[in-house]
């Protein structure tokens, strides 16, 4: 069967769209891993052993798969947060701070709401933590909308302020007493009562082997779908995308850019806050100032890799969750510092941003493909 030139052209266009959406991220990850391997090689390590150990640490046993899912959970939230911001033309680089405020809020709410049953505490805590995250994004959002202060600097500064505020609260008003009733020695909050926590999957489904994955993952997946629907089918989502695409045209078209900016950055903050919420409720069951492994920053890589598509955030978060879960075993077995994972993450961001490098590969492949038609 022979195709007309038009049909070939249409096919090629479709191919290119698919390639850009799927192949670019995949090639970016591949290039990042190759570059990472080179770094391992140059510094005297064995990249094959490193990635083998990384794989074992991420997927080797059911327990390790649970670790990957557990670590992917906050990344889905922060990935969604940053993707939502990007859609509205905002770079919420301070997701880490909103995450800290979300975690702090539920560490307090969980104790304050203790007498209530779980079907009241859990939803209230989720809402409270999301509101805390949104509140922490509100001032940078307002400054962006009113005077044009760049959100990259202001949210970053608020991130540092949040960390010191959390450190103060955990060392002062919210500090847990020691086991003997004396003032505590370490800056952590009180343990949450069981009805204020998110249970693990294997506690609900008995057939699942013991691991640390918790119901927060389910909430994250549902929320990814919700955010996708919001962006696609609601006025708020439409306005966010319009402003992100072209603020001047949007303003002319009757959308208030200032209002959309404030709402979008607050939604982004709420999503980031939820990352802190599920970490505290599902993993640590209390707040400490070491509770986040830079989830707010990894969320940037997640969002970019997902091309700001809320549904694609899920696999992207699982990838970075796996890298983070495997890092420990990689350091232990292959003697390669676990920081390699951060390097790979930065390289992924770099390659996704510098799409031209990647599309060059794709285009070359395209030429080969079309040659054979």
């Amino acid at each position, binding site marked *: 069967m022979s195709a007309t030139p038009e049909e070939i052209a249409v096919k090629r266009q479709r191919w290119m769209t698919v390639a850009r959406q799927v192949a670019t991220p995949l090639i970016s990850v591949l290039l990042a891993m190759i570059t990472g391997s080179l770094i391992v090689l140059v510094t005297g390590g064995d990249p094959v052993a490193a990635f083998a150990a990384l794989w074992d640490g991420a997927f080797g046993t059911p327990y390790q798969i649970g670790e990957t899912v557990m670590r992917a959970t906050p990344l889905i939230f922060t990935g969604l947060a940053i993707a939502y911001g990007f859609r509205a033309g905002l770079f919420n680089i301070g997701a880490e701070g909103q995450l800290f405020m979300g975690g702090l809020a539920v560490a307090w709410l969980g104790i304050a709401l203790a007498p209530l049953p779980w079907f009241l505490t859990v939803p209230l805590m989720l809402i409270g933590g999301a509101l805390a995250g949104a509140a922490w994004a509100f001032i940078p959002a307002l400054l962006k909308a009113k005077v044009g202060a760049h959100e990259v*600097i202001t949210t970053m500064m608020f991130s*540092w*302020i949040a960390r010191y505020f959390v450190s*103060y609260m955990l060392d002062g008003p919210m500090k847990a007493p020691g086991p003997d009733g004396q003032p505590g020695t370490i800056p952590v909050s009180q343990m949450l009562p069981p009805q204020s926590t998110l249970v693990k999957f294997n506690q609900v489904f008995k057939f699942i082997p013991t691991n640390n994955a918790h119901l927060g993952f389910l909430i994250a997946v549902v929320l990814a779908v919700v955010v996708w629907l919001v962006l696609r089918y609601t006025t708020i989502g439409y306005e966010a995308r319009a402003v992100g695409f072209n603020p001047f045209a949007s303003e002319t078209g009757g959308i208030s850019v200032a209002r959309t900016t404030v709402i979008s950055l607050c939604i982004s903050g709420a999503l980031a806050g939820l990352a802190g919420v599920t970490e505290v409720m599902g993993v640590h069951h209390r707040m400490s100032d070491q509770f986040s492994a830079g989830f707010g920053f990894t969320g940037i890589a997640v969002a970019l890799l997902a091309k700001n598509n809320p549904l694609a955030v899920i696999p992207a978060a699982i990838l970075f969750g796996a890298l983070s879960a495997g890092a420990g075993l990689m350091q232990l077995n292959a003697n390669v510092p676990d920081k390699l994972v951060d390097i790979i993450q*930065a390289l992924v*961001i770099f390659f996704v*941003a510098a799409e*031209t490098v990647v599309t060059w590969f794709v285009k070359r492949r395209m030429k080969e493909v079309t040659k054979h038609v």
Partner: protein
Amino acid sequence: MSSFLNILTTVVQPDLFASAVRIATPLALAAIGGTICERSGVVNIALEGLMLISAFCGTAVALAAPGLFHVGPITATWIGVCAAVVAGVIASSLHAFASITLRADQVVSGTAINILALGLTGYMIQVLYHRTGTTDAAQILPPLFAFKVHPTGGLGVVWDWFSGVFLGHSPLVYAAVIIAIVAQWALYRTRWGLRLRALGEHPRAADTVGISVIRGRYMAVLMSGALAGLAGANLTLEQVGSFSENMTSGRGFIALAANIFGRWTPVGSYLASLLFGFAESLEIRLQAFSNIIKVPPQFFLMLPYILTVVVLAGFMGRAIGPAAIGKPYEKD
């Protein structure tokens, strides 16, 4: 009231101002780098990461130099300073390549460099020093001027203040002042400066009259890398000696705010950095009175970041940045 006076006299000493200048130096060097880079139309959110990478490379080379080149500790440190500058230039070339040649989003490219810097320095600490968090300590550069004379009487007080505030500093502190003045002159009084500003305001017009946009922007980004490198060298090789993970702690972002507060001018950047330096210097000294001023230490530590937000909020509306900032240039 007497306790207030007590605090005042204890705090307002030459060292308050001297340490303001010291703290301002890395901010100012990075901020001037930011000024040059942004004047050419390229946003440089990577200052933080550039400082971090340079600080690490500077320290690592200064530590290795005595064994490699058989030099004394001070010479080794100077070699470290040079290495920091080179590292800053190399790391910034990555940002230049991505944002100028590949026309990537400049903020995202900068973020990649910031995260890369954090990961790479942490990685290299483990590879080179077999532990996490911090390197060994290198020799720090001594003050440039050392005076043995000490007048007595009224002149003595004046001398104490003068030498205390201005004369006790290490070389890069003075270099930063000179760089600020030279850069200001170059930006407004030379052909290079006029061309650089044209790139950031209207690159198409600059291109039309025969100025190479690509080359001009590359030069500007690499210069900002060199200056961020000096800033990193100042942090480790003049102030602390050793490198510790994430030791820049947001200084790159504060420097960017200082650049905006200084209205995208080198001298303005320096003066704005001085304000941040003074605030932090004051905060450190006031912390000693936590028994009188009942404020938890964490609130003092928040101050530089709060001040940055306040400055941005207060001055952003009135400060107008380069018109073509952040926009990749594409020749037709």
